[in-house]
């Protein structure tokens, strides 16, 4: 499915060939340290350095930011990023570390920042020289994001400065980040129109109004943080779009975070399934492999008819899901412009969760063993993966919020509270 197709232009086909050849020659060596399952779980500098080097080399080769304009570090092409992504997945490269930057900050900057800011920030974002984090959620603002209370007020006597106070939580990568995209309140009297959107140089402000404290996840890993602002002073040049338009800007961020934005996120990391002509998008292929190698309560897991049925159910969902984007791309088959793109986040994260849960069933008694146990199947990948799968069904709008959004924006039902 992922080979070049007649619909690809000659230039795109040439680019695909270039990507494939470059990746053959420049695939990075195995990591010197164990990497977490996803970039947002990065804990140590050694992990980050290895991945930054990889992202930078891919950027230098033109595989990152291909669809962004040249004057902000992009390749100036159309529909090249998808091709680069497919080739990087097939080549089973490591993933990119700057995921918040690539997936959320970059498209938001592209649509809402001044040219000057884009030119200054995007090249180092693409090269991973500057890591990004996201300051959206707060202790009192989770699913109800628009109730954020972190407050930005004009500095008395200086129209070009803002003073920021408040607390952000679940902030992945903040301990490495140079920059944060920040949703803050500028007007306490208007919930939605009282928000404004900033980019904040948090690394430069550490100890000068910014404190980053690690939070420990249910899995035992760190990797996300709370970030405290105490009278942080930032320049008005770091505001995106108008004062009071923060909610609209945040929608651009969230649409891209959920995979339904116009700009394709540069994405690497091999999950391709060698046994099949299509690639699994949820790790279900890996669960099948696990079943072939596992004994469950004394018997081969892959021979258990109920396990087989569960596996097939997930394989069907995986195949249907990965083919549904194809349906969206055919004019005569599209029922609604955002019906399929807006489903992606909900459907993929729930499938990944179900796949991890099935993996634990397949492991039987061994599912009790965690990552530090030398007898744990696949180094405890699934025990930890199942716990971490909740990061995906909760972050970026919980599954419940996603169902509201789909019911309202696609099916047109009235807004729920």
């Amino acid at each position, binding site marked *: *499915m992922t080979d070049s197709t007649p619909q690809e232009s000659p230039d795109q086909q040439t680019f695909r060939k270039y990507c494939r050849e470059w990746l053959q020659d420049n695939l990075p060596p195995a990591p010197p340290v164990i990497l977490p399952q996803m970039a947002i779980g990065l804990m140590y500098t050694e992990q980050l350095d290895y991945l930054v080097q990889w992202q930078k080399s891919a950027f230098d080769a033109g595989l990152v930011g291909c669809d962004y304009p040249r004057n902000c570090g992009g390749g100036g092409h159309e529909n090249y990023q998808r091709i680069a992504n497919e080739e990087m997945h097939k080549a089973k490269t490591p993933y990119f570390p700057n995921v918040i930057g690539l997936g959320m900050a970059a498209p938001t900057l592209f649509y809402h920042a001044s040219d000057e800011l884009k030119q200054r920030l995007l090249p180092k974002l693409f090269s991973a020289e500057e890591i990004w984090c996201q300051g959206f959620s707060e202790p009192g603002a989770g699913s109800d994001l628009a109730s954020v209370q972190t407050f930005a007020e004009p500095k008395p006597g200086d129209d070009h400065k803002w003073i920021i106070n408040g607390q952000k939580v679940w902030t992945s990568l903040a301990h490495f980040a140079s920059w944060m995209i920040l949703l803050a309140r500028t007007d306490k009297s208007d919930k939605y129109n009282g928000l404004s959107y900033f980019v904040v140089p948090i690394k430069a402000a550490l100890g000068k109004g910014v404190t980053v404290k690690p939070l420990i996840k249910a899995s035992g890993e760190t990797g996300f943080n709370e970030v405290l602002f105490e009278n942080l002073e930032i320049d008005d040049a770091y505001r995106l779009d108008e004062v009071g338009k923060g909610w609209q800007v945040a929608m651009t961020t969230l649409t891209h975070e959920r995979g339904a934005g116009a700009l394709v996120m540069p994405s690497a990391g091999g999950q391709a399934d060698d046994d099949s002509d299509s690639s699994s998008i949820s790790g279900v292929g890996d669960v099948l492999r696990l079943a072939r190698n596992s004994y469950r309560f004394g018997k081969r897991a892959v021979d258990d008819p109920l396990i087989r*049925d569960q596996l097939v159910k997930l394989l069907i*969902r995986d*195949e*249907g899901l990965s*083919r*549904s984007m194809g349906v969206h791309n*055919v004019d005569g088959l599209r*029922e609604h412009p955002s019906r399929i793109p807006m489903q992606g986040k909900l459907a993929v994260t729930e499938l990944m969760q179900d796949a991890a849960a099935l993996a634990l069933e397949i492991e039987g008694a061994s599912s009790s063993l965690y990552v530090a146990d030398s007898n744990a199947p696949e180094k405890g990948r699934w025990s930890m993966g199942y716990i971490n799968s909740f990061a995906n069904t909760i972050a970026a709008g919980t599954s419940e919020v996603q169902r*509201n959004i789909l019911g309202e924006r696609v099916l047109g039902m009235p807004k729920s509270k």
Partner: protein
Amino acid sequence: MTLPKDFGFSEEASLLKQTSRDFLQNKLPTEKLHQLVADDPDSFRSPVAKWDRELWREMTALGWSTLSIPDSLGGLGMPAVAVAGLVEETSRAALPSPLMSTLQACFVLAACESEHANTALQKILSGQAATLAITDQFGSWDAQDSGVSATPVSDGYRLNGTAWFVQDAAKADFYIVKAKGDEGIGLFSVDAGAAGLNASPDHIVDLTRDQAHIDFSNVEVADSAVLALPGCGVGAMHVAEPAILTLIAADIVGAGEWQLQTTVEYAKTRVQFDHPLGFFQAVKHPLVDLMLLIDQARALVYTAACAIDHEPRHAEKYARMAKAAACEVAAFGSRKSMQLHGGIGYTWECFVQIYFKRQIHNQMLFGDAAYQRTKLADLIIGTA
């Protein structure tokens, strides 16, 4: 070989899908369908096929029943994906017609690759309807099973036994009969009015179809009506099976979309506790889940249809996936459409019951989800 990313769904296929939707909305709006098929709620009424023959004639005049027949034989020569798109639309209208059975018959006849099969295709080109008589009394869809025997006679074969669960039997002009001879399974073309043939209509749940079991008592079949000789029938059925499954899955997806849209519309207008029903997440969320199920099943329908033409070695896998996924749509969509319509949804006068029953029927047709998944487990994982 790889599958084209657009499923091979051409502009022509797109146009056909849109015009067929408009045509059926115009010719058979749901109120008219209800008048046609639900005029008598008595469960013990005699089973009569309720359908609009004139509409069928118009459809055949448009070439709908000959879509997949190659141009060289006089058909429209359109890809399987276009056929699936059309079936989806006819089922969105819950159309009672022999269209799906005739289209499935076209794929079986093509798989026979015989001159006599081409002769049978000519009958379809002349406007006749066909259906498959391929199932035994135990409801087996497996290619090697049959409740009908074929005994060679001087200039052909003699059929005896019973074919069960024959779809739209009263609407068909001829049957494609799967029968067992000494050398194995063969396929035979038998006219509906043949001597020694007796079709007994079943009392079925679905109001939009008819079904029969057909007794064969020394039915003579001439050599010219032997589509696949005994021993060659299983191979032909295996080739045609992905198309049979894909079209029934397309039927389910089309009806499922009607169930979704109709229930969403009700949830927007019916007010309780001062809010339209759709305000409540207990109503909203299951409808979103139904949409997700439909879109995954639909993607698999088009993938399977595309594979039939472009990647036949994977067609069975995708087609069984499509049918299994579609059965989940049928089950969940039917439950939710009736439940979320509340009291009115449980009445005879509400249109919901018509689609509910069609979907129940669709679930079992050519094997339900559990059946397909068992086959898929052997196909993908390997036999246990």
